[in-house]
């Protein structure tokens, strides 16, 4: 398996806080790679670096051999990188269907004038986007919510819609920031099967941040433990969980 995502010696500072500290890791095509670590370890910041919301202070980021740092945030999606957010970031005043259709934005083939006239091409494209989105709706069992506004949906459903929006873009790499946080035991179980299927049936590489060690060991091939923005340990879930440095870092937090 080849390396899909490579992070090399990335460093990011917020004022005095070193959020990511000389961090290197790489994710192979087709694997599920998890990042764990206490709150404030810099996990979400790593995602935001990949999304190009922040410029690293130093280091290199590559996706499929291409330099991510040469791209702006919206151009990252064009490469086939989709993500979810720790604090759900949906389009609240739009329906579930419209949210998922925004996920298709990187496949837009029509321009403003064509869309204002709603030419046959726009209609054909809309039908194509819709078909792709319906596949996602079927996969995630979102049928009952298709025409509901996000603003009225329960938390658990929003979490799934956000996963759906990322999937609708047809990504090669999916970044999931705490996909199971705030979910019930059943919902977490569903999430686990979905992540499994996303990897196995759809062949999408998954990079996720997660606190639920049950979920992490259940779905991931490799785990990276992060503390204060630096790598603590990397390996199989079992290796990382038994690593003395990891146990040390987690002592007192009671997570493991």
């Amino acid at each position, binding site marked *: 398996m080849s390396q899909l995502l490579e992070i090399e010696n990335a460093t990011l500072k917020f004022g005095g806080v070193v959020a990511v500290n000389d961090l290197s890791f790489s994710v192979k095509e087709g694997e599920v790679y998890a990042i764990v670590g206490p709150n404030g370890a810099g996990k*979400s*910041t790593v995602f*935001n670096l990949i*999304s190009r*919301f922040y410029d690293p202070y130093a280091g290199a980021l590559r996706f499929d051999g291409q330099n991510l740092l040469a791209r*702006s*945030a*919206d*151009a*990252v*999606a*064009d490469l086939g990188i*989709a*993500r979810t*957010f*720790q*604090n*759900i*970031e*949906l*389009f*609240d*005043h*739009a329906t579930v*269907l*419209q949210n998922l*259709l*925004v*996920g*298709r*934005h*990187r496949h*837009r083939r*029509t321009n*403003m004038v064509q*869309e*204002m*006239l*709603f030419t046959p091409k*726009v*209609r054909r*494209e*809309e*039908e194509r*986007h*819709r*078909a792709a989105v*319906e596949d996602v709706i079927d996969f995630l069992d979102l049928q009952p919510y298709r025409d509901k506004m996000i*603003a*009225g*949906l*329960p*938390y658990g459903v929003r979490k799934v819609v956000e996963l759906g*929006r990322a999937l609708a*873009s047809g990504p090669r790499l999916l970044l999931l920031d705490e996909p199971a946080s705030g979910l019930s035991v059943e919902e977490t179980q569903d999430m686990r099967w979905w992540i499994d299927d996303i990897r196995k049936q759809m062949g999408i590489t998954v990079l996720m941040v997660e606190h639920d060690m049950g979920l992490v060991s259940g779905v991931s091939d490799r785990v990276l433990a992060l503390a204060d923005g630096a790598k603590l340990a990397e390996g199989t879930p079992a290796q990382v969980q038994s690593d003395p440095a990891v146990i040390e870092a987690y002592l007192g937090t009671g997570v493991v």
Partner: protein
Amino acid sequence: MRIHFKTSYDHDIRLFPDLWSFGVYAALLVIAVILPWLMDDFFLGEVTNVLIWAIAGLGLMLLTGQTGQASLGHAAFLALGCYSCIIFMEQGWPFLIAFPVAGILTGVVGTIIAIPAIRLHGIYLAIATIALSILADDIIVLLDPITDGVSGKFAPMITIFGIEIERWTTPDRFYWLVLAITVLCTLAYRNLLRSPLGRAFAAVRDSEVSASAMGVHIARTKAAAFGLSCAITGLAGALMGFYAGAFNNETFSIVISITLLMMIVIGGLGSIHGAFFGAVVVAFLPQFLSMAKDLVGGSSVAIPGLETGVFGMILILFILFEPMGIYGRWMKIRIWFELFPFARKDMFKRQKSYLKTERLR
């Protein structure tokens, strides 16, 4: 209650969800077309005014309701559309060329002005755009040789394929012209809403971070919203010029900008209906107030600022009790009737929303 049995994706993509709503809008259009035979010239003029305000409302709605960018500078774009259309016609251009070119010109200027404004958010953007409204007045005076400054300009006769159209002598023709432009603008707006760019506008409005993570170019999308919004506003401005007959540097003042913004909030942000409802309020409020004054017998007393005051009160009441505007209220009443007698009291209570922060953690 109407139940939709959908058999293809096209059901959701096409303009009207079902035969019933197609029928309603078709009937509305038929009534609109035969209106000159149903009304006297005075009321036809008032309806024309409503439609022109509605076009201007659609323009600002696209930017503020759809894309979430407030602007208090739109009077300047009304002025630009108005002056450029009439100046082009004075150069001998036919209306059918001068009018769309004036719209496009206003759109292009709007896009250029948007580029520095795009980084501003919310109230800061609103404040920055106020400057435009104020500057417009000065620029019109400074450009006296072209704009005739303080003395102002008169709108020429519109001629389309030899047919003469003028607000006072042929109010029915002018009404039909405005109606046709209203329908075209509404269709274009509606088409945008059901295609990628319209969804990108809403995405930028609701969450810039996730919009850009989905591949939406934020600056370009905002610039497109500004451009389209200003183009439609420019068209409305030209029509306002023809409607007023004469205009000068004070016609398109900051008050017009404020009225426009209040109008779409009262009508209902983010919906096409909202622009029309708001336009009805704006256009009929002065008439309504003078009738009310007649009723209490105070018609001879002039109360300065009464109109603005009442308008402001209505706005405050809406923000407090019906933030979704008249359109939101209308939807609720409609759903209540459709479900009758099954509507529940707490049906429209929103699920508690979750704290949203600008931070990405």
